[in-house]
């Protein structure tokens, strides 16, 4: 109904009107296209092709270097939390009875570096007060999920190697690479 009206109106246009309308449409579309590509190019420009990253793998010594003093684990099955690498490389190493894994010290909330409090057996974040158990699972504060785990493997020399560029979320904590069995 409406569309036939519109067609009717188009048919009634004089040639002059038709041409000037066509010119206007193509002119404005060219304008929009130029502006659009310019805009897209500008946005794309802000995504550099190459970013230089510092090396992301760290050798942290053989697995038996993470032997706990006693044999008591805490309520979360953790025997030992080792934060020697925290200030240099932003991860901590956690030893459970049968596995070793590396926790990213990057708070799952907004990325501050969490601190380990051995007497309380929790991680606390200085920025907005998120708190995590010794196994990295969040229990208080604004953090939405546990601390990420990092890829950890044993190399040919029997050394543990942590790769901070590969992270595992809670649904992948039990897959190969997220921990080393001992």
């Amino acid at each position, binding site marked *: 109904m409406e569309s036939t009206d519109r067609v009717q109106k188009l048919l009634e246009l004089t040639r002059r009107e038709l041409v000037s309308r066509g010119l206007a449409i193509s002119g404005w579309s060219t304008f929009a296209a130029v502006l659009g590509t310019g805009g897209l190019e500008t946005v794309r420009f802000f995504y550099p092709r190459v970013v230089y990253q510092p090396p992301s793998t760290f050798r942290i010594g053989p697995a038996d270097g993470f032997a706990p003093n006693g044999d008591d684990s805490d309520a979360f099955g953790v025997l030992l939390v080792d934060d020697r690498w*925290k*200030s*240099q*490389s*932003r991860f901590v190493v956690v030893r459970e009875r049968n596995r070793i894994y590396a926790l990213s*010290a990057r708070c799952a*909330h*907004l990325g*501050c*570096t*969490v*601190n380990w*409090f051995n007497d*309380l057996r*929790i991680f*606390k*974040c*200085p*920025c*907005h*007060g998120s*708190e995590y158990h010794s196994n990295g699972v969040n*229990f*208080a*504060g*604004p953090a*939405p999920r546990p601390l990420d785990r990092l890829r950890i493997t044993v190399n040919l020399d029997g050394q543990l190697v942590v790769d901070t560029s590969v992270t595992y979320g809670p649904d992948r904590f039990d897959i190969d690479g997220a921990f080393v069995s001992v």
Partner: protein
Amino acid sequence: MDSTEVASAPEAAKAPPAGSRAGAPERSASSAAATVFPDLVYKEFLAALLVSILLLVWALAINAPLLPEANPGKTENPAKAPWYFVGLQELLVYFDPWIAGVGIPTLIIVGLMAIPYIDTSHNATGRYTLGERRLAIGHFLFGFALWWVLIVIGEFLRGPNWQIYWPWQSWLVPKSAEEKLWSFPWWLGLPLLAAYFGIGLWLPRRRWPWLYERLGKSRYASAILFTLLLYSVPIKIFLRLLLRVKYVLVTPWFNI
């Protein structure tokens, strides 16, 4: 001499403001005019001079802070945002980052920009009054004060690990871990949210019919929505502080 220059002078004084709408209730300026030079210019000059003195004394007396060099491995404890954003940082305790860091700032900006399109009356324009614009001024001052209260909390009451430390408590004494938080189940959260906004939209119309009458449908709805959103912030803060509520509504996609 140059006559156009002279002609333009009184014209500028008398001409009705070019942008003003028909019926914009401005009195003609002729009643009591003052020349800008020197009557206004010297006041501006004095104000600038006073502020310069203040700033210079301040800059000579107190050095701007400069902490140790940036170190990605060690976060300052506590790590505070610049004071004007500490209010937002404090909000991060109570809301997920996309609400505290993106949603609320956007709503504040849009809400502020919307004010003149919602309140278009001319009652008591151009002078200070509290009594004659109680609603508008009350809500605005509440929001303004909330911003500053959050800044004061974040700046003066938050200590290591962003825990509350009263001014007389030492930062060296560690605080115990926080209790576990819990969230409303959806069958509680969803109706509560719906009721808050539903009743919030309906009740003022019931109680103050003139408000709806004066503002019309869309102005009324936006005014009430922005106001409800404003008050929802302290409500959530109290839920968190008093009842340890983490989320009011939990969905698979986002939490509020």
